[in-house]
């Protein structure tokens, strides 16, 4: 077992839980969106830690591919969520 692997893996768990808590408890929509992004980053860290094989062996490329696509999907989902929030705000303003 590699020291770095569990250090980053555990940090990933903590970050994910922090993000989930924020997403559930924040009142502000924008901050919930930020929180979901933090949660995603935690999951990415978990995956990249699982792929790590020490400084000499090459890491497993499959989780890297997953995380790479995950980052791009996360940013477009964030943009969609922000557009939804903006629309919601505009509707509230009309009332």
């Amino acid at each position, binding site marked *: 077992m590699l020291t770095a692997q569990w250090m980053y893996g555990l940090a990933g768990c903590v970050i994910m839980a922090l993000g989930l808590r924020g997403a559930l*408890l924040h*009142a*502000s929509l*924008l901050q919930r969106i930020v929180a979901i992004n933090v949660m995603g980053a935690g999951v990415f860290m978990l995956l990249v830690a699982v792929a790590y094989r020490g*400084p000499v062996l090459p890491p*497993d490329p499959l989780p890297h591919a997953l995380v790479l696509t995950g980052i791009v999907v996360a*940013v477009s989902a964030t*943009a969609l969520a922000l557009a939804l*929030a903006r629309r919601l705000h505009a509707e509230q303003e009309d009332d």
Partner: protein
Amino acid sequence: MSPVSLPLFDALLLFSIVGLAWASLATTDERRSVILFIAFGLVLAVAWGRLLAPDVALAEAAIGAGLSGALLLGAVHRQPRPLSPGSTNDSRNQGATGMGVVLRWVVTLLCTALAGTLAWALLHAFSSVPHDMLPRAISGNLAASGVSNPVTAVLLNFRAYDTLLELAVLLTAVLGIFALGQANPGYQPAGPVFDSLVRWLVPVLILTSGYLLWVGAHAPGGAFQAGAILAAAGVVLRLAGRTRIGLPEGFMLRIVMAAGVGLFLLVGLTLLLLGRPFLGYPPAWAGSLILLIETAAMLSIAATLLLAFLGGRPESPAHAARTESANTTASNSGNEEQTRC
């Protein structure tokens, strides 16, 4: 590698990352939260580099530093008051009422339990010998994949299905954004200092994206990173107050948006007709087919990410120019810019 100092480096790095994640969610000030989140992304890019994941680090640097920060900051600035559902006097926010406090604790406890369970599963997995079947299968078939960067091989050959569907997801997200309304109004023309930076930064970003697309075959890089950087060039132009940010209009825009999915499907179906499996490239052609698909995918990714940044259907530049000229003094320099470029 020295055994002592690298764990120390890791500890400092992780402490910073977890601290930033915590701090960006602990505050109720939206602007502060977003700035802390941007710093979080910067440090995260370093962590991906440290874990020997340069492909991921490139994407994080391009998206974390370029797109998502600009996206979130733009959203904060547009809101005169916080974006909150229902009334501003939200009990969850105050946390003063008894119910609220109980709820907070229950959620915190459940999240801690979840983190604990995950950590336990992770430690369990780490203490056994890793199953290296998949990595071995990847490196064993790398020679036939047409590229030598294993991450690109996974994305565009071994798991090409996933990437095709992911491009479809991106397209769907943008269509959803289009359905919600018009694009954000954009930015006032920037001052001379930022403008002179933009003048050389945008060409360098475009060059860099071409470079990343090209090296993706044999080194870290590829369509996603290249597309994100190309989109960042558009974001920079938008922030400088330009109305022309490199997006095509009308029918051409639709073609560019759909190019990635379209070409991918075209290649897959042609291969089916030729009696090969869907997206099972002949090894001799694999390299060129991958580069072709990646080029189309890069353009589509760049267009979708840039449209996502605009936050709605783009107005036609002609219309934008009309409103701008009606907009008098402040935009004079902006109009000059447009005629020049």
